[in-house]
């Protein structure tokens, strides 16, 4: 589903290299966790997947279902089935949450040649998914994310993901800022989406999310490179020993 080949990327503005040769293959049905120290490039990788324009790819390629993502705009990637749950979801004053959800869903359907959803059908879907995530209708009446608490914003991201039903879900620290109950609600929401033809890349610092969303593969990203790949036990080991071993290897 996703093939990242020797990806090198830098910040377009000042040419600082952030990603220095990433290789990563994710197959349908798999869940990959990416862990790594602060500033190692995890969010940068997620932004580059989603199509943010602040970065320049200097080498390598990203294939999504066999096609290169590099020439596609962010909205085309989304319509093709890629979804990024942001580490820091932003507030958009003046844009009603419902209007936003409906515009996004219908834009994607249109891009895929499907018909628009009727308003009642759309409302029903939103209500069902919102209820599962403990999101009140009152929150949905507000402008997008405006005044939402940190945890509410993260749940709002998962609501969007559940509605848009992407093929590849990239979750950037969706667990940060969630209380214990919210973590379970969000994890359940994510697990409901797990299916043999959908893949997930979960970026996190903590094992506790991976207790709920059990990964097939765990990667350690350090200074823009994947320095270690293992099974779910790798996360447990990191929790115990920290990154010292892997960061050290790199520094040499």
């Amino acid at each position, binding site marked *: 589903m996703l093939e990242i080949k020797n990806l090198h990327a830098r910040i377009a503005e000042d040419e600082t290299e952030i990603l220095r040769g990433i290789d990563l293959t994710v197959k349908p049905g798999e869940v990959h966790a990416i862990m790594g120290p602060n500033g190692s490039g995890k969010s940068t990788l997620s932004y580059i997947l989603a199509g943010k324009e602040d970065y320049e790819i200097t080498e390598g390629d990203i294939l999504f279902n066999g096609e290169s993502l590099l020439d596609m705009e962010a909205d085309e990637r989304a319509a093709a089935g890629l979804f990024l749950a942001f580490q820091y979801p932003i507030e958009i004053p*003046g844009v009603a949450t419902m209007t*936003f959800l409906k515009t996004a869903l219908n834009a994607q359907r249109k891009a895929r040649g499907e018909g628009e959803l009727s308003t009642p059908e759309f409302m029903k879907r939103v209500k069902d998914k919102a209820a599962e995530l403990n999101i009140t209708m009152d929150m949905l009446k507000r402008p997008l994310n405006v005044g939402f608490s940190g945890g509410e914003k993260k749940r709002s991201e998962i609501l969007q993901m559940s509605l*848009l039903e992407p093929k590849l879900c990239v979750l950037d620290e969706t667990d940060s800022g969630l209380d214990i109950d919210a973590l379970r609600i969000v994890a359940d929401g994510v697990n409901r989406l797990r299916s043999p033809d959908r893949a997930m890349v979960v970026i996190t610092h903590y094992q506790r999310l991976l207790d709920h969303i059990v990964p097939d593969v765990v990667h350690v990203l350090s200074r823009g490179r994947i320095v270690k790949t293992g099974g779910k036990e790798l996360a447990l080991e990191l929790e115990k020993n920290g990154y010292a071993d892997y960061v050290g290897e790199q520094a040499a």
Partner: protein
Amino acid sequence: MNIETRALKTRAETDLASQYEALRASAGASVALRDKAFALFEAKGLPHRRVEEYKYSDLRAHLKSAAAPAAVASLEQSTASLAAAEAFAGVDRFRVVLDNGRLVAGLSDLEALAREGVGVTDVALLLEDEARARGVLSAPALACDDVSVALNTAFLQGGVAIAVGEGASVSKPVEIVHLASGEGARYSRVEVSLGTGAKFTLIESFAPTASSGEVNAVSNYMVGDEAELTTARLVAGGDTHVSSIFLTLGTSSRVKTLGFNVGTGFARTQSFVSFTGEHADADLLGITMLRGKGHGDQTLVVDHAVPHCNSRELFKAVVDGQAEAVFQGKIIVRPHAQKTDGRMMTQALLLSEEASMANKPELEIFADDVQCAHGATSGQIDEDLLFYLRARGIPETEARALLVLAFLAEAVEELGDEAIVAALEERVRGWLSVEA
């Protein structure tokens, strides 16, 4: 250097002088009032950039020539023009139609308005009697030396006077549709008076004029004690448009106005607001959307002459291409107008490198126990917001439109009338869907 000895020297100015000479002969009962107004123009000429109030809107430089006053439109012409003026088609309203400055009774809902107890009078008829003409043509004090207003008086073709009686509440909004059929200049007057406790919603819409068309419109809204007025005013394009609006608020009255200017030509809307009774409250909203080489000026003078009144001014501009938006806002608080609350905000969203916004806020405060403030911001579309929307599959054009609508939302929604707000939002969407 030559000292300027004659005020009238540009082609447009001499055009106006000869046009007035021709008009004068048939001016009848109103000739003395017109002469007086025209004398002001003769002394000052067209306003230019060295006239402080017109610093950013040099009418003299803009107007290369002056179109002759437009002829009376035929009913067929007016009917065709009206069919094209559909900006508020979705609003259940009564219509009063003016074409080329004159009331078209046959296309107006006069009988329905009469049944509502609303008095509608043809301004052209008032001009036939000197005493009544004086009532219409005496320029309000705040702009007694404004040349645009003087030209409107001198060349006035007609208009409409609407009187809403004491305690009356009109069941639907009234739209005054200003049509422009054929070529020429239009000079119209709208007089609206609300009796004590009356409630009224008014729309004024200006259809785009032909390329050489000019519009000089004056509206005078008199809001009685405890009365409530909501008005939306849409100026949609045209080559040269100057509107002057006078708004007088009585004791405990409530007013919400929205001036909506969208176009590619030269447009100036100047509003003169005076508080004459205590505890009145005005929300003065403005939206300007420009592209191409458009020039849109919203100028505002708010005169707090009495204590305990609130005014809130919110003006937003969306500017694309090489267009320039102007906002000039002056709040005057007279010495005894204590407890005045005046807050003025202007915000611009610049959609291109060459788009610009000129801002001139002024507070002239002569009382000590007041709360007055002004603020101004100017910026571009936030790329992070745009990315967020696009990352959810919303294509760029649509995402930008959502953000522009979001930027304007506050100013549009504040008006409160849902159907009118919906019509204006539709107008915004229409503007955004046209490629620059």
